[in-house]
């Protein structure tokens, strides 16, 4: 992990951010830093407060408390200062469907002062990065969902920002587009761009991010490299049980077992168990169902992973 020695080596510094919507505290005292050149993941389930945090970082909404600095420049809602440093790829598409991909990019380029030959050169470059060059002349409403998302990303990186913020850029798209996006982000990260990447897909975070923050209920639960986070879970293992029925009731029963830290029904037939020393506990876990109408049909013991970390920190699995 790069160690920041100078404020200018810190791409993003977020300190004490808070935001409530009425009685609902969406973001609750969030602190983190992203070093220059680092790809940082913000990992959390729906409603964790990721988008709200990003909206404050981009100056889209005013924070109730806290500060945001990008390369030493304070970001404030209503002031254009420092915005050029940021490339923002919103969670929802933000493109004109009735314009071609290229015209959309021309529009966003012009917003940031890019014009003429230089704009066209940059547009060609980003179109190549997101693999949309051959469809650039078509109206974006004729694109597939994944292509639209890729255009959305291209718009965010067009003006060569120094901090790229991507808010769940891969939600709801085909695996091919998803891979294209992940490759593009990885390439940008390798090229030294600082990236803030939010997702609720564990494997994306593991694949892309140098460091991660786990967010839930508006709070950062833990921050660190993957290795650091996993070591927090220590010797806890995740056991996924496939049961014949009533996973909820099964989880209920398992929670009473000594050594079981948590047990959660993921769906009708899957229970995730976080246990101290799964190997020793397995007979007890399976034994729990003796004499009940619930049959264990499959057992899977997982290596400590971010899934386990998440389960450990929040008591819930990271799912939709």
């Amino acid at each position, binding site marked *: 992990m790069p160690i920041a020695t100078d404020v200018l080596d810190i791409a993003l510094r977020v300190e004490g951010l808070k935001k409530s919507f009425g009685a609902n505290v969406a973001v609750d005292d969030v602190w983190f830093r992203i070093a220059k050149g680092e790809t940082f993941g913000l990992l959390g389930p729906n409603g964790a407060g990721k988008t709200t945090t990003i909206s404050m970082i*981009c*100056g*889209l909404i005013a924070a109730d408390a806290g500060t945001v600095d990008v390369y030493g420049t304070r970001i404030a809602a*209503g002031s*254009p200062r420092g*915005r*050029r440093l*940021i490339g*923002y790829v*919103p969670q*929802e*598409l*933000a*493109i*004109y*469907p*009735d*314009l071609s991909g290229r*015209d959309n990019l*021309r*529009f*966003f380029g*012009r*917003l*940031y*002062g890019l*014009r003429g030959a230089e704009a066209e050169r940059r547009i060609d470059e980003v179109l190549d990065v997101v693999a949309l060059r051959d469809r650039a002349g078509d*109206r974006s409403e004729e694109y597939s969902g994944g292509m639209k998302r890729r255009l959305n990303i291209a*718009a965010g990186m067009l003006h060569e920002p120094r901090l790229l913020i991507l808010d769940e850029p891969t939600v709801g798209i085909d695996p091919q587009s998803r891979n294209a996006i992940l490759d593009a982000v990885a390439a940008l990260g390798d090229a030294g761009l600082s990236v803030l990447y939010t997702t609720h897909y564990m494997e994306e975070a593991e694949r892309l991010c140098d460091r991660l923050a786990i967010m839930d209920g508006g709070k950062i639960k833990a921050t660190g490299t993957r290795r650091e986070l996993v070591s927090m879970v220590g010797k806890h293992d995740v056991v996924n049980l496939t049961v014949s029925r009533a996973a909820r009731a099964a989880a209920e029963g398992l929670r009473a077992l000594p050594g079981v830290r948590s047990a959660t029904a993921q769906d009708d037939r899957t229970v995730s168990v976080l246990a101290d020393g799964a190997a020793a506990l397995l007979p007890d876990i399976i034994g729990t169902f003796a004499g009940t109408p619930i049959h264990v049909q499959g057992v899977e013991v997982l290596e400590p992973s971010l899934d386990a970390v998440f389960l450990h920190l929040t008591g819930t699995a990271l799912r939709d």
Partner: protein
Amino acid sequence: MNVVVAIVVANLRRLRNDRTSLFFLVIVPLLIVYALGAAIGGATQSTLIGVVDPQPTSATKEVRTALAGAADVRLVQVSDAGALRDALARRELDGGYVVTRRDGITTFGWMASATSPEGFHVAQVMAAAVTREGLRQRAVEVVATGRGTDRVSAAAALERANAEVTRTRVRVTALQGAGDEPKSVTAVLAGGQLTLFIFLASLFGASNVLQARQFGVTRRMRAGPVTDGLIITGEAVSRFITAALQALIIVGGTVALFHVDWGSPAAVAALSAGMALVGTGAAMLLGVVARTEQQIGGVAMGVGLVMAALGGSMQPLHYFPDAIRPFAFITPHAWMNDALWDVQVNGAGLGAVWGNVVVLGAAGTVLLAVAVLAMRRRMG
């Protein structure tokens, strides 16, 4: 500045890509001007005369025959004076007369929407017919009473015959004073459509403002190096340019295709700009309060057409009943149409209509200010 230009260019590109909008911006207004011009502006050569004569007598029939004999005149039976007045106001007829009888005197009341050469010609034919019929009646009188009567009786008979003749007279009245006749009916019709379409096109443009919000583009822009003020300016300038483009298309199109004489270009341009500003304010306001495009379509159609009708875009204000005309001026349309009439009919220049331009500008500014406040509230 980048931001404003970016938004305007994007909006114009969107317009270019939108076939439906282009159809409504170019084809529809010109088609309507053409159709109206063809229907009313009259390729018909004969003069249409309305006749209100509920109880014809031999004398009134004689006048009618004389008029019908005039080669370029066609007579149309009309039920009463009110209906005749309406038909004249709608320019369905070129003139007409009402036969009334009071105290034994028959009066031919001539009406025309304006004094025109055709009107004078018809009135002359009518007067001649009335005189001829009078002479005929006098002769009949003389012959009937002149056989074997004394001078005193003959003089008395002649006296009576004379009195009979003077009982029929022609009175020429015009609904409007002289000088109000448009040089070209098509120009006046096109003027009304110019007003209507600048406003209507603006209102429909409100969907661009709504869409920028719905597409997430407005929010995305706000993450960039821009201020809310610049975003709003960009959208407003886009609306204004679209409205001005609509004006240019109608004026340019009607000049090129139908050779319409619009009068002073400066006056027409200033009035169009004033109306475009009103349209801009209205579009921005509608764009920020509307939730769906259907709402915008409904409001644009409803408000756009009702205001156009009330403001004299469908029927010139000059033909409005006096009691209603003042109410027309609650619409911006009336201020523009009123001034356009002056420009097209009386040859007025910018100097004569600047007051109306100021009223339009002020109305547009107020609307725009309200819209900007509403937008800032929504964004903040």
